[in-house]
Structures are given as C-alpha cells and as structure tokens.
C-alpha cells in the first residue's frame, strides 16, 4: 500500500494530536467486597472453573510463602513471588485452553500450576537437583515443561515476546487450533524486542495474546520513569492491535477479557493486547528490598485490593466456598509443599556429565574431551567438588 490509511481525513488547521489523546478505561467487574459493579454482566464462569482458579491461588500463596522462608533459611538461593498478581496470572491462564502455548516472563508460576505442574516439579527446580526438568542449570523459578506447553523461562527480558509471535505463527500455518499467550511486565515492554514482537504479530497475523502485567514497578523503577504514555495499552493502537485494559486484581474481568481475546485471536488469526493493572505486593525478588524506593503506605493501599480475597468474597457469596474449606486447603498445601521440600533438597545435583549435554543434540568431540578432562580432575580433587565427585563412575 502506498497511501496513508487516513488520507481521506484531511485537516487544514495546524493541530497536534495531544500526548494523551487516547484515554483507555479499565474494565472492572468485581468489587473488593465480592459484589459486581453496577452494569457488569453476570460473569460467565461456572463453579468448577471458579474453584479451579481459587485452588490455584491458594496453592501459589502457600508456595510463595514457603519458598521465601526457604530462601531466608538459606535452603535455596533465590526466589520471586507473584503476590498481588494472582488474579491476573491465574485467571488468564484458566481462560485459555490447556493446549495453548505459554511464554512467560518469570512471575507466572500461577499459570504453570494451573497447567498441572506438580509440587515435586516446583521443588526440584528450585533446588536445582538432578530431577529438575531443567537439569539444574538455571536459577530458581526458571521453570518450563514441554508436556504442559509452558516455555522454559529465560532471564533476558522481553526476548520471549517476538518468540511468542513466531510460535503463534507456526500454530497458525500448521492449523493447530491453538493460540499462544505471552506474559511480560510493564518494564520489559520498554525493550526493543517488545516493539519487534508486537509489530510482527500484527503484520503476520499471529494468534497471540500479549498479556502485560503492569504492576507499577520494574525492580526500583516506578512506571512513571518507565514511560509517559497511558500505560502499555495505548501502544496497542499504534500496532493496529485489538486492545483492552483490565483491572488485574479482578479475577472475573481478567477471565472474561482473556476468554474473549482467545476467541478473537483464533478466529481472526490476529494478536490481542491485554494490559492488567495490578501491583507487585512483595519485593522484586529475594535479592531486593523495596523499602529503598517505595512507601509502606503505598503498599498498604494496594494490600487492601488483595485479588485473592476479592475473588474469595465472590465465591463465598455464591455459596461456592467456605472458611472450613479454606483452612483445609491451606493446611493440605502447606503439608504437601513442606514435605516435598524436605525430599527435594536431599536429591543430589545433576551428574557431572549433565554440564556437557544439551549444548548440542549430541556431544561433539571437543566437549567429550573437556568432559573427560574434567572428570579426571574431579577424581583427583574429590573434596573440592563434593557435588559430583562421589557419583562418578570410574
């Protein structure tokens, strides 16, 4: 095409489009007390789905709590919670198909759990032991599972965004009937890869949901030092992409928006952008201390908007949940996780050989030589390398 799409629209007076010409509203369904906003349609969510979502929320709360404690005790080296963002993550994951592909950033353990990642799998990854699907190679929380269609987490930010476009493009031309969802933070959305992935998805008609968790911070950097536009949603229009902003602490709003986005993406082979407004209630990671850059008051305001509690109130109002159930579930998960933790932390690290596998499909000659040399060295200094020396075959 050679003419601007809008040539028909001409003006003859000098007028700039204002910097915030577009004001994008937030879609909200559920109030904090568990009642619906006036004018909101009755949510299209059955009891089983609601229970599935809530169950996963509780699980993740327990997991995060337990892992933070484990990190403090020095049992694992690092951890990241998703506290405050459970609705955004879990409701969106449940709203799509379990065969759809997930590309996540790192704070989306709730989506992975919703797919069925087991306590054992979580623990083995966090302890980098030889049962870890990732073979103990990446830091804690870098989960991934082929069986569950959940791409292994990669630390470099935003790289997954154009990758999600490519994966979704493959789904389209292979006519799999599936879509891809791609999670990222509002900070990661500043990367060049964001621009690349968004624009290419629009141009190539990739059926992908870009799900931005706008939680207000990228480590210490508040979002008003990250961008000056109206959040991330205002960029969707620039890419010619269908877009919605939702209250990310509102399970029902997130669920409805994501379900509709999926339907649209699949039917039209087009991407959709969802911006979920939420808040990172915890520290960025166990290496971070937010008191250096934000106030307790601010945190308190958001703590009052707890997404898990909000959803629970609705469940209770529907007669789908009770305090007894709550207690039982919490204590069951606490037990499960703690006992698996004790098992996983005793499972040994991967064998020495695993440092050399998977660089290529087969170990090439130079890596075989490096492995042999290292094996001999470890055997010579068994005390220096206790993790592997005891387990080498002669």
């Amino acid at each position: 095409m050679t003419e601007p799409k809008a040539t028909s629209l001409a003006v003859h007076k000098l007028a700039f489009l204002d910097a915030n010409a577009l004001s994008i509203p937030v879609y909200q369904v559920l109030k904090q007390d568990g009642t619906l906003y006036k004018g909101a349609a009755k949510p299209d969510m059955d009891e089983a789905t609601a229970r599935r979502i809530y169950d996963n929320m509780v699980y993740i709360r327990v997991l995060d709590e337990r892992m933070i404690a484990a990190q403090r005790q020095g049992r694992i080296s690092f951890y990241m919670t998703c506290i405050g963002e459970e609705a955004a993550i879990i409701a969106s994951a449940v709203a799509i198909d379990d065969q759809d592909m997930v590309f996540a950033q790192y704070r989306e353990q709730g989506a992975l759990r919703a797919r069925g990642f087991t306590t054992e799998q979580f623990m083995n990854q966090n302890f980098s032991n030889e049962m870890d699907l990732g073979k103990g190679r990446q830091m804690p929380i870098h989960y991934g599972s082929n069986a569950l269609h959940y791409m292994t987490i990669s630390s470099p930010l935003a790289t997954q965004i154009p990758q999600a476009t490519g994966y979704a493009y493959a789904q389209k031309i292979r006519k799999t009937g599936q879509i891809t969802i791609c999670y990222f933070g509002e900070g990661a959305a500043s990367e060049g890869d964001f621009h690349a992935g968004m624009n290419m998805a629009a141009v190539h008609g990739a059926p992908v949901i870009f799900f931005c968790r706008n939680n207000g911070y990228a480590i210490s950097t508040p979002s008003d030092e990250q961008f000056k536009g109206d959040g991330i949603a205002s960029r969707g229009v620039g890419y010619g992409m269908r877009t919605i902003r939702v209250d990310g602490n509102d399970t029902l709003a997130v669920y409805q928006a994501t379900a509709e986005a999926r339907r649209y993406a699949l039917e039209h082979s087009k991407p959709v952008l969802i911006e979920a407004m939420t808040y990172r209630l915890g520290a960025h990671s166990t290496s971070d201390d937010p008191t250096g850059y934000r106030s307790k008051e601010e945190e308190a305001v958001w703590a009052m908007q707890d997404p898990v509690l909000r959803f629970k109130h609705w469940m209770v109002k529907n007669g789908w949940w009770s305090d007894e159930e709550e207690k039982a579930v919490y204590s069951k998960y606490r037990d499960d996780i703690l006992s698996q933790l004790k098992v996983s932390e005793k499972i040994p690290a991967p064998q020495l050989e695993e440092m050399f596998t998977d660089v290529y499909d087969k170990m090439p000659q130079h890596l075989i030589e490096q492995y042999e040399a290292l094996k001999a060295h470890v055997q010579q200094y068994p005390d220096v390398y206790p993790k592997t020396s005891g387990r080498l075959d002669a």
Partner: protein
Amino acid sequence: MSKMNLLQAVNHALTTAMEQDPHMVCFGEDVGHFGGVFRATSGLQEKFGKDRCFNTPLVEQGIIGMANGFAASGTTVVAEIQFGDYIFPAYDQIVNETAKFRYRSGNEFNVGGLTIRTPYGGGIAGGLYHSQSPEANFTHTPGLKIVVPRNAYEAKGLLLSAIRDPNPVLFLEPKRLYRASVGEVPETDYEIPLTVADVVQEGKDITLLAWGAQIEYAEKAAAMAAKDGISCEIVDLRTLLPWDRDTVAASVNKTGRLLVTHEAPITSGFGAEIAATIQERCFLSLEAPIARVCGLDVPYPLALEKEYIPDQYKIYEGIKRTMNF
C-alpha cells in the same frame, strides 16, 4: 549437474529443502515477492505461497526472535539477515537465546530447526557496513554451529546439511562470490557433512587454512609459492564451530607450518583460536610460528579496501616469512 553461481546454489538448496519439508518457512527483509536484495530467495514465494516465504518488518532482533519461537515449535526455519553487518541488533536473540535454548531448558525445548543465512565479507566497495565478516563475533558461543561455503557446489551441500542439522546454524555466505563463483552443481539433493574440513590441495611444506572467499586468495598465493618451489597444503575449514581440529592438526603435523587467513580483523579473529589450539596440539611439529594473514584492526574502509584485504600477495609474503623463519 548444471552450471550455477553461488546464489543459484543457495536458491536451489532452499527450494529442495522446502519441497521436502512442507512446514519449513523462510523469511527476512525483502525476501518475499522480491526474492531478497541479492535474489537468493527468488521464486520461493511464488512456489510455496506467502505463508511460507515472506517479507518481515525491518527489525533483525524480531526476525531472529520470531525465528526462535517458530523453531521452538519443532518446525524448520531459514531466517535471512540482509547483510552480515546488520546481524548485531539480533545478537542477543542469537547469543543468549538461540544458542542456549536447549541447554537452559534441559532439552524440554530446542531451536535446532533454525538456520540463519547472511551474506558477509568485503571486496564489493561496501565500506564499514556492507563488508564485515562477523564469524568471530559468534565463535565464542557454545550451542551454535557456524558454516561458510567457498563455492557454489559447497554452498548447496552445506546449506542442506545446515537446514537439516538438529542444531541452530549460522550460515555465512561470501557475497563477493555470489555471482563470481560459478561451477557444476548437482540438481539432486546432496549434503556435505558439518565439522569436516576439506583438504582442497595437498602439499608438504606449509598448511594454508582459510574458509569462504579467502580460499581463492590462498589458492592464488599457493600458486605463486609453487613457483618458488614451496608446496602448500590448502585446507578449507568449512565449519568454524565446532571445528575439525583433527584434520587441521594432521595437516600441520605433516607440513610443520601453518598460516591462517581471514578477512576479519586479526585481533580476536577466529585465526586466534586456531593458532592457540594448534600451537598446543602440534607444538613439537611446528618449525615456525603460526602466521596469521588477516584483516587489519580498523573498521572496514572504503577507498582503501584493496589495501585492507588479506590478498594473495600478503599471503604469499606470509608464506615466505614462515618458510624462512
């Protein structure tokens, strides 16, 4: 067999691979209808449709990002970067993502179906940004394979191997030879194995090691040296990562001397790795220091390109210096 230039050989390899693999795609800037600025992909969109061969927006990090995701689905993809000089915006996607995809996931996922093609090298009056030879910017990256063909025949066979290799491959095409290198190329499907160097010419006094367009200069220098009674063995490394150390070491153990030539700047070029490895492997056989006749440590110039290039005269002088050590 038919006479083809290197570009046609590349086009042939792509056509062959796409015919055989119904999901394979091929994309990059201007590669669709237009067939790429060098026409390496010409005819592919007509033949295989817009879904399988298409233009992308102008964003190299996106091209490789998208290619990584596509390949991660278990599908074959050949991504083109218009010039080797423009591969650097995609450096993170290649070095941190492509190369580490399988390892970091414990083989839950891999991008083995990915091949990245790009024209590289000088000799075409391209100056700083249409001449670079970026191989050594990638040889430090475990997980990648890197392949460079020296002529049309090699290009087709090596590219078919690269596309089908279950690991990501960076395939560097010497653009100076695109139309200049013409030879007999089989119409049939054939592969040339990766990580196997090729002894192009046997000799006994000194080994000349090169790849891509430098092989031509090495051959000319060898011819000049032959007149002085010096017998050169010429080895085309073909695959730079992982490279065939045995063939090179065997040759050097035989000749006792090694000269490596590449067009990229000498400092930290891939010649350094070869010299470092071979001085260790062949220490007792070496009768002279390993010589490197390479590009200068300057950005690639324009007006003085001829002066920059490690041509046959410079190689020939390098041979003599090494022989007379």
